[in-house]
């Protein structure tokens, strides 16, 4: 092999000491190779200066907590394995029950029952058949389904039923009346709590509605979740299809896939991106419903939460590391409550505002996370302020489609003192893309 051909290996540091010496001697004689080596050296030198200019420090807190985090992670992995096994067994059992039920229905011994059913259908309005799919800690008004129309989940349990072709899940501390009327035009009445729905596709005239307080959420074949606090606040999140929300005054708003909207007397509806976790399956929406009831996921100004003594008790128990751990574990609602209590007690607690922004960002609550970052911009030190500017700008640009606000923040970021802009290059690039005519 010619020595010139070994230049690539030399620059990639793939040669042993002897081969390197041969190439280095060759560089003295061959001007083309020397020029190429010098160019590479210059690129590397400039790049090294840029890459090493900033010191990266790891947190001593994390250093101490790593062993505990590993233990927690292992525990969760074991629990997930057990849950998966149970879910598999439940699915197999359900399939078996359905097969047996279908065989019984087709049996001639059931002919009389079928005739009775047909006679009833001619005199009474047809109602969708209710089948229990999954129940955990729920209370049924009539345990001999079908027929249980009033459902109540008093504690941290949950309940999933199939009503006709629709699948309806009820979260923790929820009460609802299941569909009544024609299957094509059914109504769920939500007294309080969370209901997650996967509605079957209906004809253009038919619909499925959830009524909560004076609100009506109407859909034609979609997947969505409705939370009602029983008094004033409604949250509607949609992962498939489009729903229309009619407020008590007759006003109408549409919520589209990937969006969630909150409603109250004071707030006619605020749109934001749906938490990505909620997008993929109704199960995940139900898991979210299992979080302890609180106003935190969609409202929760510090003033509201300050009045709850239990929250300040939580805050006093949780330091930064514990809150980070909660966020890492995905317990966003708990982390958010603790952080809101902290900023309620100390409104200039920059670390808490930063964590609040991070917690909400990870929970998919983009608008609220920007609010937290904006508060940090008001109360933080120079470096913290700039970090918050960059994060808020990213969310505004990428999730909330607000280029004007993002441009303003990127500009402020770049105008900040040197040493507080570790991501200057990215900010420049993003700004130039946003301001490109």
């Amino acid at each position, binding site marked *: 092999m010619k020595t010139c051909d070994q230049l*690539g290996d030399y620059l990639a540091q793939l040669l042993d000491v002897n081969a390197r010496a041969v190439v280095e001697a060759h560089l003295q004689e061959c001007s083309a190779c020397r020029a190429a080596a010098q160019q590479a050296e210059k690129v590397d030198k400039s*790049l090294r200066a840029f890459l090493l200019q*900033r010191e990266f420090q790891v947190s001593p807190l994390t250093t101490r907590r790593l062993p505990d985090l590993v233990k927690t992670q292992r525990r969760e992995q074991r629990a997930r394995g057990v849950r998966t096994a149970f879910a598999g067994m439940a699915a197999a059992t359900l399939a078996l029950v359905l097969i047996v039920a279908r065989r019984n229905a087709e049996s001639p011994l059931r002919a009389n029952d079928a005739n009775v059913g047909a006679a009833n259908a001619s005199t009474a309005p047809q109602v969708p058949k209710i089948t229990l799919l999954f129940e955990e800690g729920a209370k049924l008004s009539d345990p001999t389904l079908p027929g249980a129309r009033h459902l109540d989940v008093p504690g941290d349990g949950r309940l999933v039923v199939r009503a006709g072709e629709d699948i309806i899940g009820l979260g923790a501390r929820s009460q609802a009346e299941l569909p009544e009327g024609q299957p094509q035009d059914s109504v769920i009445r939500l007294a309080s709590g969370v209901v997650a729905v996967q509605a079957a596709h209906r004809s253009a005239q038919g619909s499925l509605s959830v009524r909560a307080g004076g609100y009506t959420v109407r859909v034609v074949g979609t997947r969505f979740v409705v939370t009602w606090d029983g008094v004033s606040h409604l949250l509607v999140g949609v992962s498939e299809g489009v729903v229309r929300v009619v407020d008590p005054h007759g006003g109408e708003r549409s919520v589209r896939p990937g969006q969630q909207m909150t409603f109250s007397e004071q707030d006619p509806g605020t749109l934001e991106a749906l938490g990505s976790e909620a997008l993929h399956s109704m199960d995940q929406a139900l898991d979210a419903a299992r979080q302890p009831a609180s106003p935190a996921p969609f409202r929760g100004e510090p003033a509201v939460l300050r009045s709850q003594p239990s929250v300040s008790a939580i805050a006093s128990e949780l330091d930064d590391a514990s809150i980070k751990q909660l966020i890492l574990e995905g317990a966003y609602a708990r982390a958010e409550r603790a952080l809101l209590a902290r900023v309620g007690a100390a409104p200039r607690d920059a670390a808490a505002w930063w964590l609040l922004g991070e917690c909400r*960002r990870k929970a998919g609550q983009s608008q609220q996370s920007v609010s937290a970052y904006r508060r940090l911009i008001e109360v933080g030190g120079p470096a913290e302020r700039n*970090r918050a500017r960059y994060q808020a700008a990213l969310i505004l640009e990428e999730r909330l489609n607000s280029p004007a606000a993002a441009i303003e923040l990127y500009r402020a970021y770049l105008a900040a003192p040197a040493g507080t802009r*570790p*991501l200057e290059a990215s900010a*420049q690039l993003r700004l130039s893309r946003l301001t490109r005519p």
Partner: protein
Amino acid sequence: MNERLSQPSDEVVIARLAAGELSELGVLYVRHGSQVLRFLTHTTGDPSAAEDLCQDVFLAVPNAAKRYRELGKLRPWLLGIAARKAKSWKRRQWVRATLLDRFRFWAPLESECEPPHALPAQQSAIERAFVCLPQQFREVLLLQVAEGLTGLEIAAALGISPGAARVRLHRARQELRKLLGDAAFDVEAVA
């Protein structure tokens, strides 16, 4: 006694971790955490995500330690885990962006990337050019130029052949020069 000598070597720490002594994890984190964090910050471009991923890298170490075979330094092995975590993070970002159809991919795509001379001039050209490089090029440059890994170590860290590492490094430098403009690295200017 020399303080350095009293500290257990990386290999000893890894062996202890494989035996279940989780308290040793902090030692590795202190020794290599900042380099892993630097690599992840430059690879992802998102400091918050980099912090999370850095923690994930070290959380993965106790399980991976059982499969660790001493091939030289430990850092290339850790950076290899970090590279895989960063790739998987990028994939998740992409899935999310595609599903919601409203989010844009985090990193500047090659086609979207502006040549540095079209960007505002306050920033150093090298910095702007580096951000524009594709992730696989940024990875190899970071590993060699910032972390001082040899071609063989880079190949081991990224799970590619030494030949592929050489080609990637060559193309990465070529791309960087193209973005910066050949004039900036004219041989005559160097000489």
